C-alpha cells in the first residue's frame, strides 16, 4: 500500500471553463462563509436535493460529498478519514462520509475551523438537508451528523424510484411516483419556509427551473460535441465542469458557464484543438475518478490516450417540461428521467433519478452507446471501494459489453477519496499493459456489428 503523496498529481486541464472551476469553488465557499457570518440561512446539503429549490430560497449550501472530493484533491482527506476511523467508523464506509465525520470531529475539538481545512472549511450550517436517493449512507450520514455533531434542524427528503421491470406506461404507477415526489418536494418547501421565515417565491422558482433546463441542455449539447475526433474535452475537464450543474444549475451563473463551455468546445472542435495533439486511443471511463489523483488522466494522455467520455455525472437527455408548473415540473422531470432510464434497462440502475432528475447509475445500454458514439478503443472501469453504489453494476457492464462490443476493458480498484487505497505502481503498470493491448489492436474502435 502506498501512502506517500508524491505520486499524486493534480490535473492539468484543457478547457478554459474547466480551468475556471477552482475559482468557482473558492468563490462559492467564500460566499457561503460570508453569508453565514451575516446570519443568512445556510445548509449542509446532500447532493441531489433539488438545487433549484435551494436557489429559489437563496440558501447558502455546501455539500459534504463535494467537500470529500475537495479534501481529497487538496491532500487533506487522509487526515480526516483517520480521525473518523479512530472514532469507530468502519473503513468500509463511504470515504466522503468518513471525510466529513473526521472534519467535523476536529472542528468541534478545536471549537474553530481547522487551520488546514480546504477552502476555509464548510462552516456551521443553520440546517441539514439530506435526500434518500441512491444509497443508505446518505440518510445514516446526516443522521449521524445531527445526532453527534450539529444540533440544527434536519430534513430528510424521500426519493423513490420504480424498481426494475415495472410497467412504466401504466398511468397508475406514474401517478404513484409523481404523487409522492410532489409531496416530498412540498414538504421540503414547508421545511425551508419554516427555517427561513420566507414563503417560497413561485416566480423565482419558475425562473430557476427554466435556467436549470437551459443549463442541462447546454451541458448535454457540449457532451454531444465531445464525440468529435480528436477529443476536444477530456474526462478530467468534465469532472470539473459538472460542479455548477450538480450544485447550482438553477442560477444564471450556471447558464453562463455552460454557454461559454459550449462555445469553447464548439470552437475547439471546429479548429481541431485537441486534448492531445496525437490522439492514438480514446477510452470510456466507467466509475468515479480518484479525486486525490486526477493527474492520472494526464498520465493516460502522456501515453497517447484520452478519456473521451465517462459514465459518471451524466446529465441525461434534455427534457421538455413547462417550468411554469413549478414543483410539479420538478416531479415530472424526475419521472421522465426514470422512464428514460427504464427504457435503457434499469436492472442495475434501480435508483434512476433524483427529485429533480439527477441521474444515479447508468443503464448498460446507455454505457454501450457511449462506447459506440464516442468511438472509444477501450474501457477503463474504476471500482471505488467505499462507494458500493456507484461501483455496483460494473461487473454487469463488463459481462454485457463483452458480449455486445469488441473492446478491451481494464479494471482498476482504488477509491474516490481515500488515497490509501491507491497503488500507484500497480495501477500504472496495468494502464501501460492495457495501452499495449490497444496498440496491438490499432484501428479497432467499438464495435461488434
Amino acid at each position, binding site marked *: 500500500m502506498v501512502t506517500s503523496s508524491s505520486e499524486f498529481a493534480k490535473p492539468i486541464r484543457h478547457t478554459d471553463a474547466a480551468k475556471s472551476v477552482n475559482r468557482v469553488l473558492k468563490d462559492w465557499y467564500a460566499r457561503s462563509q460570508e453569508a453565514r457570518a451575516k446570519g443568512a440561512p445556510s445548509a449542509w446539503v446532500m447532493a441531489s436535493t433539488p438545487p433549484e429549490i435551494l436557489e429559489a430560497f437563496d440558501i447558502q449550501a455546501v455539500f459534504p460529498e463535494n467537500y470529500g472530493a475537495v479534501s481529497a484533491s487538496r491532500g487533506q482527506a487522509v487526515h480526516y478519514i483517520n480521525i473518523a476511523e479512530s472514532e*469507530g467508523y*468502519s473503513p468500509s464506509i463511504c470515504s466522503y462520509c468518513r471525510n466529513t465525520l473526521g472534519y467535523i470531529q476536529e472542528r468541534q475539538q478545536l471549537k474553530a475551523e481547522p487551520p488546514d481545512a480546504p477552502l476555509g472549511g464548510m462552516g456551521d450550517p443553520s440546517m441539514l438537508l439530506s435526500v434518500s436517493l441512491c444509497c443508505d449512507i446518505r440518510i445514516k450520514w446526516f443522521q449521524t451528523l445531527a445526532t*453527534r455533531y450539529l444540533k440544527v434542524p434536519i430534513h430528510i427528503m*424521500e426519493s423513490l424510484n420504480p424498481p426494475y421491470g415495472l410497467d412504466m406506461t401504466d398511468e397508475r404507477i406514474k401517478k404513484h411516483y409523481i404523487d409522492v415526489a410532489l409531496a*416530498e418536494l412540498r414538504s421540503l418547501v414547508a421545511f425551508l419556509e419554516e427555517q427561513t421565515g420566507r414563503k417560497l417565491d413561485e416566480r423565482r422558482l419558475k425562473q430557476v427551473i427554466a435556467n436549470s433546463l437551459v443549463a442541462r441542455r447546454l451541458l448535454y449539447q457540449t457532451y454531444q460535441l465531445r464525440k468529435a475526433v480528436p477529443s476536444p474535452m477530456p474526462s478530467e475537464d468534465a469532472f470539473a465542469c459538472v460542479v455548477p450543474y450538480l450544485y447550482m444549475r438553477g442560477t444564471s451563473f450556471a447558464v453562463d458557464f455552460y454557454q461559454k463551455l459550449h462555445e469553447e468546445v464548439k470552437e475547439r472542435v471546429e479548429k481541431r484543438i485537441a486534448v492531445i495533439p496525437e490522439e492514438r486511443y480514446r477510452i470510456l471511463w466507467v466509475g468515479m475518478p480518484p479525486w486525490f489523483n486526477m493527474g492520472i488522466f494526464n498520465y493516460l494522455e502522456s501515453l497517447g490516450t484520452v478519456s473521451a467520455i465517462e459514465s459518471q455525472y451524466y446529465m441525461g437527455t434534455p427534457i421538455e417540461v413547462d417550468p411554469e408548473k413549478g414543483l410539479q415540473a420538478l416531479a415530472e422531470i424526475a419521472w421522465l428521467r426514470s422512464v428514460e432510464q427504464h427504457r435503457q434497462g434499469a436492472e442495475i440502475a434501480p435508483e434512476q433519478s433524483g427529485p429533480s432528475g439527477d441521474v444515479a447509475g447508468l443503464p448498460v445500454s446507455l454505457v454501450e452507446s457511449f462506447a459506440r458514439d464516442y468511438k472509444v478503443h477501450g474501457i477503463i472501469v474504476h*471500482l471505488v471501494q467505499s462507494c458500493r453504489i456507484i461501483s455496483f453494476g*460494473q461487473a454487469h457492464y463488463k459481462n454485457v459489453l463483452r458480449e455486445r462490443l469488441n473492446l478491451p476493458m481494464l479494471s482498476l480498484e482504488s477509491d474516490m477519496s481515500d488515497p490509501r487505497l491507491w497503488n500507484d505502481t500497480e495501477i500504472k503498470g496495468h494502464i501501460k499493459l492495457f495501452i499495449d493491448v490497444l496498440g496491438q489492436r490499432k484501428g479497432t474502435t467499438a464495435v461488434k456489428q
Partner: protein
Amino acid sequence: MVPVAALTGLQKVKYIYNNRLDRVKELKSEGKRIIGYLCSMAPLEILEAAGLVPFRIMGSPQKGTASADVHIETNMCPYVRNCFARGLEGEFGFLDGLLLSHTCDSVLRLYGLWKYHLDAPFTHCVNVPHTISEPTIRFFREEIELFKEKVEQYAGQEISGPALRASIELYNANKALVKELYGLRKEDPPLISGTEMMETLVAGLSIPAREFNQLLREVKDEVITRPPKLTKKPRLLLHGCIMDKTGFVSLIEKCGAKVVMDDTCIGTRTFWNEVATDGDLLDGLIDSYFKKFQCPRTYRGRSLHRFDYLRQYATDYNAQGMISYIMRFCDCHSLDAPDMRDYLRELRLPVLIVEDDYTEGAVQSLRVRIQAFIESVTEISV
C-alpha cells in the same frame, strides 16, 4: 434414520434446520407454488392468503460466492452475494417466484440482477421508503395494494377480506408463540438457549406458517418440561445484521454466555410486531411492516433515543451486555455503530462490536475477542 414425521420439538427443529429445502420441495411436488423472499418488509400474509407458500431464501457460508462474484462487485453485502450465488447455482430452482423489498441498497440491487438472470413467473419488489411521514405511508399503502393485486393476478384468485384476516391471524399466532418462547428466556438460566431459539426460527421460516405454529407449540412443551439447567451464565443481548446460521450464537454460548434476547433480522425484527386486526387490515400491515419495523435502514430521528428499545430489551431480559454483529459493507449498521456504542456506554451496558463477512472461518476467528468480552462482563456483574 427416524422419518421426520416421527420427530417432534427440538429434534424436528434440528432436522428441518439441516434440511431446510425438504418441506418446500415436497409441497412443490404436491402442486403448491413457492415464493422465495429475503428479509421481508412486504407482508407474507398476502402470499399465504392467496395459497402461495413463502420460503425465506438463505445463504450457505461454507459454499462461498464465486458464482455471484462474476455479477456483483465484492464490495457489496457478502450475505446478499452468498444468497445470489446459491440462486445462480440452482439451489432454489424450485421457486416459482421472488419477493424482495427495498430494505437496503444491496437487496434492492440484488432484485434487478435476480430478475435479469433468474426471472420467474412471479417476481416482485415492494418499494419501501426510508422515512416515515404521511406521504410515505400513503406510498407504502399503494405499494401493498399493488403487491396484493399482482399476487391475485398470479394466483388467479382474489384475496378476500376473510382470507387475508385468516392469514394474518395465522402469522400473528407464529409471532405470539415466538414471543412466548422468548419469555422463557427471562428465566435464569433461560429455559431455551439462544442457539436452540435461532434453530427454531430458521426452521420455522422454511415451512408453512401453520406447521410452524405446531412446531413452536412442541418446542415450548419440550423446553418447559425438560429438567432445567442449573449453571447460571452471563446473559447477553445479541444485536446485528442478518444471521441465518447458528454459528455465531453458538460460538458465544460455547464461550460461556447465554444469548437471552436479540435485535436481529431472524429474531425480534421479524417476529415482534403482530398485525392489528381490530381495524382496517391494511393499516395493521402498514404498522407492522413499515412503521414499527425495527431496522436501522429506516430513519428514526436524530437522537440517541432511537436505541431506547435496546435498553428495554436489556432490562426485560436482564441482559448484562450486548454483542453486535455487523456484516461487512452493511452501511446502515456500520454507520449506526458508534452512536449505539455511546448510547450503551451511557447505560453502562458493556458492548462488543464485531464485523464479519458471512464466512465460517471469520466466525471462528472471533472466539478470543468474545471470550475476553464475556470475562469482562462477568467481572462487572460480580
